[in-house]
């Protein structure tokens, strides 16, 4: 057992009406759109957090993924400042940007919508919910760049900046949504797999392949 090696301890994946946890499908609810999936998912997991209803879709997606990922995981044994989060995203907050711009054109711009025109608000929402106070970065890329995420998170561990990190990819645009989250622990004893770029990529691929498999069967 390697007690000093960073490991991936949990993972979660959400796309098109499905939610997976640690490789298994936890919840499936065919829904017309993300909003209705998000709402039934929220109710299914018996989450009580009224702020959820104020969030935009990107934040709701990130929130639900983090909620599943951290359910039954004791994050409180870490000092909040030692918990990091970094997320890669492709379309920034474009979905809410378009909605906000429509309000501007009508002359009814709203601060409650404007605040969500920043992609890192999703990180803020997750930090508030789980009392995460450490390093937090939002990268925008054209794909889920596991190498970028692995390299950066490794630096956080190697420099003792962080003890644990919530990592992944969260993207939302026009009802197309995908969230992949995992927990990387610096000193890990019960890992799913060791923390390497290849393992992150494989884990992500397993989910996307699984989803494609289901898609063709149905």
């Amino acid at each position, binding site marked *: 057992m390697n007690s000093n090696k960073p490991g991936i301890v949990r993972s979660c994946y959400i796309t098109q009406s499905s939610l997976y946890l640690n490789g298994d499908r936890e919840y499936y609810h065919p829904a017309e759109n993300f909003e209705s999936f998000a709402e039934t998912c929220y109710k299914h997991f018996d989450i009580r957090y009224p702020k959820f209803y104020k969030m935009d879709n990107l934040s709701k997606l990130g929130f639900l993924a983090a909620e599943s990922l951290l359910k039954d995981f004791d994050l409180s044994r870490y000092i909040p400042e030692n918990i990091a989060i970094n997320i890669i995203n492709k379309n920034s907050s474009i979905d809410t*940007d378009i909605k906000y*711009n429509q309000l501007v054109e009508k002359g009814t711009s709203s601060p409650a919508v404007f*605040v969500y*025109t920043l992609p890192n608000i999703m990180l*803020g929402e997750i930090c508030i919910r789980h009392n995460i106070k450490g390093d*937090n970065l939002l*990268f925008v890329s054209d794909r889920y760049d596991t190498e970028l995420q692995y390299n950066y998170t490794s*630096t956080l561990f190697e420099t003792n900046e962080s003890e644990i990190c919530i990592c992944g990819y969260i993207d939302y645009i026009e009802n197309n949504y995908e969230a992949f989250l995992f927990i990387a622990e610096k000193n890990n004893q019960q890992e799913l797999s060791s923390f390497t770029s290849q393992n992150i990529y494989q884990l992500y691929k397993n989910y996307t392949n699984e989803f494609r498999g289901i898609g063709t069967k149905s």
Partner: protein
Amino acid sequence: MHADIFIKGHNIISPLGISSEENFKEILKGNTGVKLHNRIDIDDEPFYASLIDDQILPGASHLHPGNKKYTRFETLLIASIKQALETVAVDMEDKKTILIFSSTKGNIALLEKNEPLSNSLEEISLFHSAKLVTELFKNPNTPVVISNACISGIAALIYAKRLLSSGAYENAVVVGGDNISKFIFSGFKSFRALSNGVCKPFSADRDGINLGEAASTVILSTQSQPGALQLKGGAIRNDANHISGPSKTGVELSSAIDKALSEANILSKQIDFISAHGTATPFNDEMEAKSFYLSKLYDTPVNSFKGYFGHTLGAAGLVESVIGMMSLQHSTIIPTFGFTNHGVSVPVNICAQQIHKPMHSFLKTASGFGGCNAAVVFSNSN
């Protein structure tokens, strides 16, 4: 591992000038880029902001109708990188050089003015802009884009420092910018966050921010440079409190400051001045003052450059770091433009007059929506 990260070069493009030196000179003279604008494309009413006139922008000729190769946002970034490269030799085509971008809204103006979205939403994407700029400079690496609200610039510097320290690259060209349009302006207006005049950081009568346009570049390197400053430490923290309001206590920014100082191996009393975020909103400046107090920076002179540049969003952390670095090198602490009288609940030494003295280190802080805070420490090499 490379412990020492050096500043190889930098640039600021703002209404005050197109080089770091021009900007610094104007600031020493007490000039500001913030003025009253009548721009119905941005707002129906006149407003105070620091906006770049395209006339002063190098390479802006292709902004003329008919030439759509680069947007105004991309032109700002390109101009800033080119200007920075005028003064230092960096092989942009080298695999050991990477480009890092910092912006909040990039090409968002393309959504407005009924401009048809010709090539789908891709043109608005920050990564698309980053790729275009990277290709122009023939850099072989995939660019990195950081979008962390108003700490983006400082966050990009911290990211760059960690990346270079890991040995992955020799040079990091960090460039940031934002373009003020109706989208951004209306948002801050809806928050009632805009000042009715030139902003007044840390003052009792402060009433909000001025928005500003700038692009700025900071080139970091693992290679030692004679007389170069160093980026000694940095940290990012989250308030975990509210998405649009800062912490009530300042504990989390203070934690970022303490971590940046300890990484830099510098005591708070060795900090010669603090370049604060100092947006001039009631809540931000109060929170920041509390965090300086918590980090035992009671007497350290504090300045905010928002009165000179406005809040330049994705460029802010870079612009203000560059002015801070030049302050160190010119042994001059810059006064806080717009400061009237002390207006926060804890003692804080707001710099209101130029102070001339030899200096070693300064602290730069930033905070933003999403509850994020960042702090970095720059020092002389000696």
